[in-house]
Structures are given as structure tokens and as C-alpha cells.
């Protein structure tokens, strides 16, 4: 198992190198000059020259790249051009917020998607199945910003059930924090819930028609045992892996939702950084997200083995 994890990490290294180059390269191709943005009003050429020197913006690009990578490896993602704060610190400060949002969204997506998928499979080609599929399709196609705005208008503004926006740290007031994030987490979860529903449904359908389900029924086991233990036990294996990957998607995809609900998370950090051409922050955030994504991939592979007895206990 450890060997496998080590191998997967090794395989990930070239990916990371290429990725870091792309992140760095693309950044340099963005139109606009960061110093100009910074110096919106003031434009003393001397100050500009000093800053360009300080942030090594006039070095050849490969030199800039190597310097950047060297620092990153030491945990130094540089300093924000805008705030002057260390990027690593900014990231670590915002990360828990986005992780909380993504985790809540994932839990909701699983609580909605998996049971709906089971139900749709067990009641295949009935009204229930059609409804589940239709809802899933809308879950995938309704834009998050639209759903977010509607929910804010209905649940927060008209009915005053939930806070409209903002963020309360989980350490400060657990329930208020969860309540505040309920709506954004739901909005974020819809696409993943729909995806999980469809995959659970098709995995369940595949498993339900297999011979060992017939055997389980031949033993006289009751439907709920057959479905929840024998069928779901096997159908969930690929779903576990998929969920891990989807969690990576959620972390990366929280940007828009955070904007709608004014959550000061990772997404806000990156949007602000892009608009102000804060290179160091953008690079840091994107690289960090990419590493998180690759880590999720490795975790998915490991989990696949953990849940699969055929791989866990080879012949």
C-alpha cells in the first residue's frame, strides 16, 4: 500500500513540473502590467523601476521561473504585489473557508445524490426514476449564479430563513457558521449531486442485474438487505473514487459560488488577484489548487484499493 502511494506520488512529479511551467507561462501572457495596476494614480518612473527590480520583473522568464520554483519548494510562494503579505499566509488563511464550503457541499451532494441514485435504480422506468433523472438534469444545467440569486431572494430575503451571504468562522459559532454556509453549499452541490445520482443509478443497475444479487435473493434475503448490503456494497466502490475526484472539483469550482454569496474564501482570493494582476497570489493559489487536485487523485486511487477486496487481498 505504502509502495503504491509512493509510486503515485512519483508519477505526479512530472505532472507538477509541467503544470508549474504552464501556470507561470500563462501568467506572463496576461495583458496588462502589474506595476501599472498597482500604481493606479502615481506613475513616478523611478518608483516603477524600483518595483520592477524588486519583483525581478525584468529578468529573463526562465530565470524568474527557476527563482519562483526554488522559493515555492521552501514554502515561500512570494509576497502579494498588492498587500505585501506572504502568499502562503494568505492561502492558509482562506483555505479553511473554502474547505468548509466544499466539504459541506460534498456531504449534501452525497446525501442527495446517492440515495436518489439508489431509488432511481431500484424503481427503474417508473415515475420516480423519471423524476430523479429530470431533477438531475436540471441540477446539471441550472447555472449556479441563477440558483444562488433565487435562493437568496426566496430563503433569505422573503422568508428570512437563512442569512443571505457572508461568512462566520466555524470556530466562532459552529451552528451559525453552518447555517450561513447552507445555501452556498447547496448551490455548489447541485451539479455534483446530479452527477453522483446518475453514476449511482448506473452502478446500481449494473450490480442489480449481476448473478450474485440473484444468489442473495435466492438465499431469501429481504429486499433492503439485498439492495443496501449486496448491491450498494459493490456499487459504491467506484462512487467512492468518483466522490474523491469530485471533491477536488468542488474545491476548485467554489470560485463562482463564493462570489455570489460574498464568502471571503479561496475563490475571492483568486478573483481579486486576477483583477489586480497580483501574479504571486494567482500563481500560488493555482499551484496550490493543482497540488490539492493531484492529492485527491492519489487519495482516490488509494481508496479504490481500500474498498476493493479483490485488490486488497490478491490471490
Amino acid at each position, binding site marked *: 500500500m505504502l509502495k503504491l502511494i509512493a509510486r503515485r506520488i512519483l508519477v505526479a512529479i512530472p505532472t507538477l513540473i509541467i503544470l508549474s511551467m504552464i501556470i507561470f507561462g500563462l501568467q506572463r501572457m496576461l495583458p496588462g502590467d502589474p506595476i501599472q495596476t498597482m500604481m493606479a494614480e502615481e506613475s513616478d518612473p523611478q518608483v516603477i523601476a524600483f518595483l520592477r527590480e524588486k519583483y525581478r520583473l525584468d529578468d529573463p522568464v526562465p530565470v524568474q521561473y527557476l527563482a519562483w520554483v526554488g522559493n515555492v519548494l521552501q514554502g515561500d510562494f512570494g509576497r502579494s504585489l498588492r498587500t505585501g503579505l506572504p502568499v502562503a499566509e494568505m492561502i492558509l488563511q482562506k483555505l479553511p473557508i473554502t474547505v468548509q464550503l466544499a466539504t459541506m457541499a460534498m456531504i449534501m451532494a452525497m446525501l442527495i445524490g446517492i440515495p436518489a441514485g439508489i431509488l432511481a435504480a431500484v424503481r427503474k422506468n417508473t415515475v420516480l426514476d423519471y423524476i430523479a433523472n429530470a431533477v438531475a438534469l436540471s441540477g446539471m444545467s441550472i447555472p449556479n449564479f441563477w440558483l444562488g440569486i433565487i435562493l437568496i431572494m426566496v430563503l433569505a430575503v422573503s422568508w428570512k430563513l437563512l442569512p443571505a451571504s457572508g461568512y462566520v468562522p466555524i470556530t466562532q459559532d459552529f451552528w451559525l457558521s453552518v447555517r450561513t454556509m447552507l445555501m452556498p453549499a447547496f448551490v455548489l452541490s447541485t451539479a455534483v449531486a446530479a452527477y453522483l445520482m446518475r453514476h449511482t443509478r448506473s452502478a446500481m443497475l449494473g450490480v442489480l442485474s*449481476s*448473478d*450474485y444479487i*440473484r*444468489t*442473495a*435473493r*435466492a*438465499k*431469501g*434475503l*429481504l429486499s433492503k*438487505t439485498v439492495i443496501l448490503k*449486496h448491491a450498494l*456494497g*459493490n456499487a459504491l*466502490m467506484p462512487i467512492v473514487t468518483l466522490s474523491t475526484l469530485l471533491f477536488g472539483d468542488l474545491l476548485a469550482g467554489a470560485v463562482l459560488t463564493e462570489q455570489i454569496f460574498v464568502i471571503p474564501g479561496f475563490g475571492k482570493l483568486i478573483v481579486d488577484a486576477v483583477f489586480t494582476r497580483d501574479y504571486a497570489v494567482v500563481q500560488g493559489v493555482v499551484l496550490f489548487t493543482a497540488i490539492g487536485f493531484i492529492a485527491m487523485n492519489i487519495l482516490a486511487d488509494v481508496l479504490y484499493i481500500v474498498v*476493493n*477486496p*479483490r485488490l486488497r*487481498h490478491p*490471490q
Partner: protein
Amino acid sequence: MTGTTTSQPLLSVEDFSLNFSGMEKANLIDGISFSVLPGQTLCLVGESGCGKSVTSLALMGLLASPPARVKCGRALFNGRDLFTLSERQRADLRGNEIAMIFQEPMTSLNPSLTVGHQIVEGIRRHNAVSSEDARARALEMLELVRIPAPEKRFDAYPHQMSGGMRQRAMIAMALANSPKLLIADEPTTALDVTIQAQILALVSRLQRETGTAMILITHDLSVVAEVADRVAVMYAGRIVETGSVEEIFSDPQHPYTLGLFGSVPSLGRRTGALATIEGSVPPLEKMPAGCRFATRCPFADQRCHREAPPRYEPTPGHQVTCWYAPLEDHVRAA
């Protein structure tokens, strides 16, 4: 073997017809009747696709309905009609009083549960016993089906066992609750030839020792000769002939039985090659209104195609459904 004919049948299937939705023209299983006496073995034989598996699954209550639909008939098991029981009542019988072994040992066990657990689960479903007692019973069963090192195999996953071992485990599972009836649907077809005989001997020995009645579906006539008390010959969803194993082998009356068993050389003269039956089963919608075998039968005439043949009983318990029974008359006449 045939001396027990006076006892009450354990299972008595009467005029049973079944269809799948979407094929309403002719019944897939069309008015079949047969019975199984306690402790006896009935072999169900017939060409591939004639409905042997569908019949056994219907008896087990394992066909999804819809699309499967029992059109008419009864299946009296210990006097209760299986087809009128509730799903819960049927589940209570399954794996308890009626058990089944399937053809595919490689895929018939749940890959994510240990073999031992899968046996224990069946025991505990039908008996209020502690998990230790269930485990002891499961180990006893694993020993009974001659699985080496049962303690170790108990915790093995199916993929860690060979096909033969898995089928032994399936047999252990099926017999764990001492069923009154065991349905074995080609239990050895998927196995290596060398193992087939062992598994069959095992099933047959256990079945006799425990006094379990058995419906054995097989394509192997030497197996039929060896283990059957009675034989039912199926063709295209109907039972064309049923009788004791001696009657079927030494005095076959239906042309299809003759063809299937490839015997009785005197017939060859009249008909050409009956031993290998020519042609194929017509699709359900093209099935003749009369005898379903008419399209391939060397004796068939207009009447056979048009009108359903009567049931003829040369001796009590030996029944054949054919216009030309008794066959001897016609063979001699020619």
C-alpha cells in the same frame, strides 16, 4: 426408486404458463405440469432456450415481474401454491425450504463479502441463532462439501478460490438450511471437465444423504441416467414427455425425446437421421398452433401443425403429448 410413487408430491406444478411482456402471441412457458416427490430427483432436459432456467427461476420467485408474468397454473409446494404467496412469504421459503444452485460459480458469489459471511448470512436469515452457532454450522457445511481447510476458506473472498471451490461453497450455502427441494441449474456446465464429475457426485451424494428432493437441469444424458428418478423432457416451453428414467431411456414415446436421446436405431430407417434433430426452434411468434415440435418432426402432418396433441399415458406416470403416440404403432406400420 419408483416404489415411492404413492407418497404425496413435494412439488406439483400444474398447467403452468408464463410470459414476458411484449410477447403476447404465444406463451414462453406453455402449460407445463410435473411433480417431484420428496427425496427424489427430477431431471429437466431439453435444448438450449426451451425454458428450463425460466421455469426454475419462476419456481424460486426470482423472475422480475414485470416483465415476467405467470399466466395460469399452480405450483403446489407442500400444498401451498407458490404463485399466490406474497413476496415476503416467498422470501421466507427461499434458501430455507427451496434452495438453488446456479450455473456460474465465478459470478454467483458476492465479490466483496467473504465466503463464510455469505453462508452465515443465509443461515441467520432463516434461523434465530447466534453468529457463533451460524459460523459453526457454516464450517460444518464447508467440511461437508469437502472444501479443504474450511477455517481458512471461511475468511476467503470468492476471487481467492477456484471455480470448483466456489461451486462447492455455493452448494454449502444452498444446503445450509436443509432445504426440502434443491434446484440445480446446470451446476457443472461452467466447470472444468475433470471437476464436473466430482461436483455432480457431491451434489448427488448430499442430496441423497439429506433426503432433499432435487430438480436437476442438465444437458448431459449420462448424468440423467446416473442420478435421475424421473425425467421431464422440455421442448419450446412445453413438456413433451415425462416418465421414470427407465421409461424415458428404454421406451421413449415422443419423437423429440427420441431425437434428443439419439437412440432406437429401428427408427432411423423410416425417417433418416432423427438422432441429430434437424432445423431449429421457431421463434415464439412463428410457433405452430398445434404441436410446437411439428416444424422439425419427421412424423408431422397437417393435424400436428393445427391442433394441440392429446396427452397419452402408456403406463401410469409416463406421459407423452403427441398425436403419434404410441410411437411403436407408427414405426411398425412403416
